[in-house]
């Protein structure tokens, strides 16, 4: 089972190490992790995508809650929510492929953010599904480099 957790933490040094250490020390899985500041500068928010059976997911939430600098753990996964990730992909832009690439970028509402004689760099946002679909289509062009932010998520309403 996949779970998406929003974890509100104290914005202090060492907190990321505590969370990462918890996952590695107990053999939990981190599929994606992103950290940023919140409106309250004393807090950070982490979105963690993880995987496990029901018992493991319950342990993950409980163990996170047990860490002193963790203020709140929100199980976003179980509720209606929005997920987004931003990716940068550098693809080979052979002259014969350029039109095709542009068309795909347009269909997926991406952007070309850098152009060189042989490559395009594409910026794209979406949920996991959309990004996977886009990458599958673009892969035959030859992906030279890719960087992803990890998922951020928010409950609807």
């Amino acid at each position, binding site marked *: 089972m996949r779970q998406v957790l929003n974890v509100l933490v*104290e914005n202090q040094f*060492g907190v990321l190490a505590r969370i990462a250490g918890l996952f590695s020390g107990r053999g939990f899985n981190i599929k994606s992790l992103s950290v940023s500041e919140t409106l309250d500068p004393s807090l950070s928010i982490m979105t963690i995508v993880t995987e496990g059976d029901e*018992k493991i997911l319950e342990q993950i939430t*409980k163990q996170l809650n*047990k860490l*002193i600098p*963790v203020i709140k753990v929100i199980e976003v996964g179980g509720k209606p929510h929005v997920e987004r990730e931003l990716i940068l992909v550098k693809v080979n832009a052979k002259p014969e492929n350029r039109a095709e690439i542009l068309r795909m970028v347009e269909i997926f509402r991406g952007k070309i953010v850098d152009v060189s004689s042989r490559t395009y760099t594409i910026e794209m946002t979406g949920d996991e599904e959309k990004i996977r679909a886009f990458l599958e289509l673009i892969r035959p062009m030859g992906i030279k480099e890719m960087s992803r932010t990890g998922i951020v998520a928010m409950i609807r309403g």
Partner: protein
Amino acid sequence: MKKRTGAQILLECLKREGVEVIFGYPGGAILPLLEEMSKWDFKFVLVRHEQAAVHAADGYARASGKVGVCLVTSGPGATNTVTGIATAYMDSVPVVVFTGQVPVSLIGNDAFQEADIVGITRPCTKHNYLVTDVRDLSRIVREAFYIASTGRPGPVLVDLPKNVLTAQTEFHYPERVEVRGYKPTLEGHLPQIQRAASLILKAKRPVVYAGGGVIISGASEELIRLAELLDIPVTTTLMGLGGFPGTHPLFLGMLGMHGTYQANMAVTECDVLIAVGARFDDRVTGKVEEFSPRSKKIHIDIDPTSIKKNVYVDIPIVGDCKRVLRRLLEVINSSGVNPEEYRRRLSDWHCQIEQWRKQQEAFNNNYNRQGGNRIKPQHVVQKLYELTGGEAIITTEVGQNQMWAAQYFKVNHPRTFLSSGGLGTMGYGFPAAIGAQVAFPDRLVIDIAGDGSIQMNIQELATAVQHNLPVKVAILNNGYLGMVRQWQQLFHGRIYYATRLGDWNPDFVRLAEAYGAVGLRATKPEEVEPVIREALRIPRPVLMDFWVEEEENVYPMVPAGEPLTKMILL
């Protein structure tokens, strides 16, 4: 307002926390603090190894219920505390460890005697801090004690860079502590408690399985009331010994790998299992899939992560054991249940348990009959129990000695049986006994030891002598790392590889004397009693060397990973 140094602020905070004793060891990084401390009236117990400082603080804490405090220097002083900290962490002991650190400006530079102790101890502390600004110091110390001693207690480490100790600031003591990410749940959820009560009242074969949480929360009295009201038999874990009186007719003894036959059979056959302040450790459950297979389970614990971690429970109750048990008793009392009638319903169950108990007793008598002219280690513990009238604080090392102590010394009071249960740290018992003796100078404190374990912190004889701590050590000297040898005998083809100590053990009696303590020896069964009597008479540290049967095994035994019913009785 007059400014004060970090060292002064720290000591002022310790005073306000009620700290009287500090276990520690000096070094360069904490010199400013020691200089300041010389002007105060703390009792500083100088140990001979930093690991022992933490175990001693741990023993002090377990025996007294107060927070144990340690102070060590940076680098190797700090890394030497790790085993002690991990031991306290596994057994939920409130200890605050202060470590020296290189000045903030040098951190990260591989400076002399620098170690990233906050990084190293992150997974084995309840929480830890690096103080980078003297203005944070009083708040952090306050939080450290608060976190260590509340909720599920545990060790907290505070790393003190040298420049923070000398820097000056105005002193503000935070009267209130508020840690927004830390709010332990104390009161159990009432509807859950009501569900638990009605489950218990329907039971025909109930049993209580109590752990260290009962002792930590001071819930023994409530547990006894619950058991006596409904005639419910009680078994405890190693950590729970003393949480329910060892001589109580409803006590089944310890359960688990070396638990009694009646305890293991009762948890296997019960229909309602009431787990209180316990965590379903693998040494308790055996093969977890077959643990108490037909019971409905109630689990009371302050730590939500302990619940449903290893075993599914039907009624989880997060809360402080004492408060939850109180509530549970209220609910049961007001339920209109007729206790007489309830107890009558349990008579078959008690008959069954009595039969199991008889089987166990038949086995107990067996070892006596085997006799011969070697001392039986069980006999030594039995005699210690009889000659002290059970009134002693017992600490143990780890191995066979620990299990025999647990099986043969009936513990009647909470906080009088101190043993490294979770981590199983050899070398724990002696320094822990020193800590307990510091907490209670007038009580009898005995470390039941093995010849292997005692050598892990034997240097603390000097500490005991220096501080006039009349701790008694009873070495069950079998010439082996006995528990490992037992496993080699039973499961690894009887090949005693790397477990023989006998020929190279020191002469413990002369060793004790060399340290200025008293050494006594018994090599024959009839010498056991006189040696114990003599030791109890001497108001100084005494080390008793009992030459016991070398290849005696601890039984009953459930082989690791087997269900509790696969007990080897003899």
